[in-house]
């Protein structure tokens, strides 16, 4: 985090030194973009706050399915509709593994968590428009499924034959 500020500070200094006017325009443009999308960022934070109410118990129960493909599909759906920071998601993933949930299912969960953002929709559509946002998330869902399957194969949880 400190690195980001040092980097930004240095970039600003160099930019200012090279061309004051350009720097001013750049700052103005950056702030304009931020101002325009601020409501979407805030909306997103509120949505995430509500989604995070979903208790760990529910997630553990849902993913610990008897049949592995049911578990996989649940993990993909659950990962798509939720969003959580790494310091919550990974300890949870560790618990899942400890409880005997397959690596494939855990991979499906963490990957779709990162890749598919139903809750980030209001923010993403500001930058990508509705159509590209929907399609990108749809493609992301299949990418997450593919990654999970590969993980399952490598851990010997699903056979190729």
């Amino acid at each position: 985090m400190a690195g980001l500020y040092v980097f930004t500070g240095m970039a600003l200094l160099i930019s200012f030194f090279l061309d004051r006017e350009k720097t001013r325009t750049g700052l103005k443009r950056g702030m304009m973009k931020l101002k325009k999308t601020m409501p979407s960022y805030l909306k997103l934070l509120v949505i995430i706050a509500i989604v995070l109410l979903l208790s760990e118990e529910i997630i553990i129960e849902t993913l610990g399915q008897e049949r592995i493909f049911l578990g996989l599909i649940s993990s993909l759906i659950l990962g798509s509709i939720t969003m959580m920071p790494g310091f919550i998601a990974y300890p949870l993933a560790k618990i899942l593994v400890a409880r005997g949930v397959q690596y494939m299912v855990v991979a499906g969960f963490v990957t779709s968590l990162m890749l598919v953002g139903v809750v980030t929709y209001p923010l993403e559509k500001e930058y990508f428009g509705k159509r590209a946002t929907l399609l990108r998330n749809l493609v992301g869902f299949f990418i997450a499924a593919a990654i999970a399957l590969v993980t399952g194969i490598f851990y010997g949880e699903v056979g190729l034959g």
Partner: protein
Amino acid sequence: MKQTLKNYGVFLLFLTFSGVSFLLEYDFGIRIFDNFMIFARDMVLIIPPAFVLIGLFDVWARREKVEKHFGNTNNPLRFVWAVLLASTTVGGTFVAFPLANALYHKGAKYSSILSYVTAASLFMIPMTIMEAGMLGIKFTLIRLLASLPFIFLGSIYLGRHLEKIGYELPKIDQ
């Protein structure tokens, strides 16, 4: 004024609800506010400098350069740049979305920026280190290596579709 109220309505409602929850010691409301703070703390720190950098990028990045590295379909190196840029993007997709939009308006191809955004959500360095620590290096390696071909294929496929229908990304700074 009316527009502002409309834009920030959800947030204002949330603030009011949180305030009332604290006053009445309403546990459910306080829990939601605590959850809100988990992400809000990081966002408040990351977003302002990120947008300063995006603004500077806007005025300094030359169109020809962006086109050369991200806009030429015959240049497979653009995928390497996309992944490298993604793994060093602080703030994940929250920052990657606006930067991808800026890149697009400087002449980057869809397949490049889609790879960038997708990789930005999967390749964040601090997250990856944490994952390897929690789930083992084998898990992380499989996840990262397996994702690459799918990221590129998915991005190329979706990029082609968007180009075919003449899709354009919204402009933000007007």
